[in-house]
């Protein structure tokens, strides 16, 4: 591990990160835009490689006692494009006759010469005449009605979820969350088209998993933003983008940990299972899950939140705050101090210590919104209490005068002598 990553990891662990998520939206949007554009071009040119379940295809059957893996390599040698063909054995329950069955999707078997060469190769493998290799076309088992219904359901789902986010949060958050979701869909579809991997029913299901996960992730992030905005509503000392940045840095450790936990097993299956040990069947949707989970985590941090900040900054209330703060030249100072640890530190000073000196504090500051604190109020919300109580009303609502370096915690707080430790 390099020193830089150790440093970044330590800062993350201690909540001392202050990445500017909202401010650099142009960079994030450009990255995503490029990826999506490449994917869309590929989709237009190459399309998707649908498996036999969607479009049907060709099936070869040959009576033989050869093993499945032998048949697989014979087919792959005869027609390299059929590498993703399904090979299985059929055993007649009455006669005990064993048959090898090879199925391949319509798109890959459109060349009659290739179909014929597979037929010849299978006949050679089974040491039988070519007439004994039965050739048949097979219809789709995943009918178009299943696809239609799934699309219908996804549309209904998007509408219901938008309404839910709108009610639970607000309209602009719904818009941002949906944009992130569409971003994830486009990125995943684009990568599937680029890689040429087969789209099977399993892939579609993996895809649906991603939709749910992406929204889930975005909502966890928005929950924190909403909580912090509520507290800031009356302080007027932070722009919306700064609030978003604080929130993002607060949930950063959670986002990274959760994504790691979800992605590691999938990555392990993909890398060890599919590529090292050669289990090709795992590739098709292992990749869908990996891409989907990664882009899902990325989009909630780098697409949904900056977009939300952009949308909200245009509201008169927040553009007013920004204008005022920029005039006072305070924003640059604020940016440096907006780490979760600093916010928490500033809260520590203001918040009554419920165990040690709660009673005393309550007496000293009767205006303190005690119920809010008891409910586990968000850190910044306490600033509201302070403002209401008429504390030092100037500057940034953060205690620290110097940015913290690692290991440099705020100085001991004199009035916490009674605190049990």
């Amino acid at each position, binding site marked *: 591990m390099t020193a830089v990553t150790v440093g970044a990891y330590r800062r993350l662990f201690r909540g001392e990160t202050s990445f500017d998520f909202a401010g650099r939206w142009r960079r994030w949007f450009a990255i995503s835009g490029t990826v999506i554009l490449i994917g869309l071009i590929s989709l237009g040119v190459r399309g998707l490689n649908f498996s036999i379940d969607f479009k049907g295809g060709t099936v070869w059957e040959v009576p033989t006692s050869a093993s499945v893996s032998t048949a697989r390599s014979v087919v792959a040698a005869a027609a390299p494009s059929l590498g993703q063909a399904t090979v*299985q054995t059929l055993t007649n329950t009455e006669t005990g006759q064993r048959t090898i069955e090879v199925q391949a999707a319509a798109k890959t078997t459109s060349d009659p010469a290739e179909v014929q060469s597979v037929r010849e190769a299978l006949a050679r493998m089974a040491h039988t005449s070519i007439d004994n290799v039965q050739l048949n076309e097979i219809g789709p088992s995943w*009918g178009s009605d299943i696809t239609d219904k799934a699309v219908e*359901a996804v549309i209904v*789902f998007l509408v219901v979820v938008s309404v839910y986010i709108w009610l639970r949060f607000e309209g602009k958050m719904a818009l941002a969350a949906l944009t992130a979701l569409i971003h994830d869909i486009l990125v995943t579809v684009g990568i599937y088209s680029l890689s040429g991997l087969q789209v099977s029913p399993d892939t579609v299901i993996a895809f649906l998993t991603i939709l749910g996960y992406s929204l889930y992730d975005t909502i966890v992030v928005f929950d924190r933003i909403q909580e912090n905005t509520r507290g800031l509503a009356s302080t007027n000392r932070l722009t919306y983008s700064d609030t978003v940045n604080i929130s993002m840095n607060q949930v950063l450790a959670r986002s990274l940990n959760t994504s790691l936990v979800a992605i590691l097993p999938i990555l392990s299956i993909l890398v060890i299972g599919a590529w090292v040990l050669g289990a090709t069947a795992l590739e098709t949707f292992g990749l869908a899950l990996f891409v989907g989970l990664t882009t899902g985590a990325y989009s909630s941090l780098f697409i949904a939140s900056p977009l939300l900040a952009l949308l909200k900054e245009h509201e008169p209330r927040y553009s007013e705050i920004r204008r005022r703060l920029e005039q006072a030249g305070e924003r640059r100072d604020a940016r440096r101090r907006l780490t979760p640890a600093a916010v928490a530190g500033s809260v520590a000073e203001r918040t009554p210590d419920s165990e040690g000196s709660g009673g005393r504090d309550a007496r000293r500051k009767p205006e303190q919104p005690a119920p809010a604190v008891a409910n586990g109020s968000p850190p910044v919300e306490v600033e509201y209490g302070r403002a209401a109580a008429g504390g030092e009303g100037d500057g940034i609502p953060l205690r620290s005068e110097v940015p913290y370096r690692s290991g440099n915690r705020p100085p001991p707080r004199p009035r916490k002598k009674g605190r049990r430790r």
Partner: protein
Amino acid sequence: MRRGLVWSLLIIVGVAAACLGVTIGLGRAPLLGLDLKGGVSLVLKPTGTANASQLQEAVNIIDRRVNGLGVSNSDVARQGSEVVINLPGIKNSQQALDELGQTAVLYFRPVKCEIPPYAAPKAATTPTTVAPKVSGTVPSKALGEPGAFRLTSALLASSTTPTTLVPTNGPGPTAAQLQQACSSSNASEIPTTPVSQDTAKATVILPDRSGQVRYVLGPADMTGSAVSNAQVEVDPTTGQYTVLLTFTGKGAAEFDKIATSRYACYEQNTANPPACSLEAFELDGVVESAPTIQAPSFHGTAVISGSSSNPFTSSQASQLALVLKYGSLPVRFVPQQVQTVSATIGKDSLRAGLLAGIGGLAIVMLYMLAYYRALGLVVLVGLGVGGALLYSILTELSYTSYHLTLTLAGVTGIIVSIGITVDSYVVYFERLKDEVRSGRTVRQSVERSFTRAFRTVLTADLVSFLAALILYFFTIGDVKGFAFTLGLSTLLDVFTAYFFIRPAVILVGRRRSITDNPVFGIARGLGSRPGRALPGEA
């Protein structure tokens, strides 16, 4: 308060252990899907010729029949001019073949008269009646009802082979016999029409399901494609089981036309309605029901009820609904052959995937322990509890009529759901970290952090659950099965968050020996002691 927490913890761990113990003790394991374990392949061949669209329609209907819930992982496809059905984990393939060979056309036929069974004269009619659905709400489909009749492995293996009432071939009644069947004094000597002669345009003599009465039926008025849905309901006034029949737009008009003429017959003698007021629903040579038509028009919905003296049982009503809903195929099929199919994924691939998955999980656990210290242990135990519950529930569902089958996609879905489950812990722990960072002790923070974190978890899980619910009710096939598993694991997540994570963390957080341990302490895992070595530096 504290006692409540201990109890909650003890109960959930106890329940999880008991579930797992019982499941393993009974030697049960989830059914494995076609891709993991293989199964049985049945080939059905249409009698006569059938075009591609008829075959595709048949495929859709059979698919819905064998995999209505989407969790049984059956696979139906057209292959050449035949239909191939793959069923996972089937035990008695011959029975499956017999059962699926029963697929046939549902006909609506006029009743000319009732006659006694062939060579066994004993008449006992069981009149049933049809009344128009009184306007008002159509209750939603009872969840799980149709599931009881899914044609999959376990059901097929255990169900009795239906009626041998109708000969598949052989001499049928002659034209002369059919002519005078209704007036003949020894009608029981007239043979029943064999299946091979049971065509839409023919006049036929067919028995009802009990075999105690036969009907002389005219040419078919319409086929089962006129029915869009059929479901079991309980009449709120009488408490009896009824079947609510919904027609398609075109079917409704056709049925009203039939109903008008039957009702005219019914009006002649309402106390003892003549045979011409009956309409028979015939499937595969058996009259499933022959209700009296008691209204001239039905506007698209009809309720079939048993007679007051002989009401439907729950299973009779379900059977009738199933037949009406799924019983109609555009062509008739003859079973061709049964073969066992191997798994589509090789054993070595499967083992590789499994090993890789377990390895990935182990890395995740190590990471959790390194990052959160003692709290990582809570995650470990919590995943064990959640896993035991999920495994038991999945296994149990494999043994019910749902025939839930675990496929590779399902296994992967579970791995992803581990991510979402662990997220509940991570959200909570990070919240705890915020609180501890702001100067509180672990002890003070555990409960208030939970309140906030649980709110977040609930909000996010609600979206997942909404997704599952909508997908479940709007889709068919495999997608439905996915939605089912997603919904289940989401519910389990909320459940373990409240009943396991909360008490476990609160209890652990109260012990100073655990929170302040220099190596393993929670406080350290939460980064509340600056200046010391952190995991990254070690």
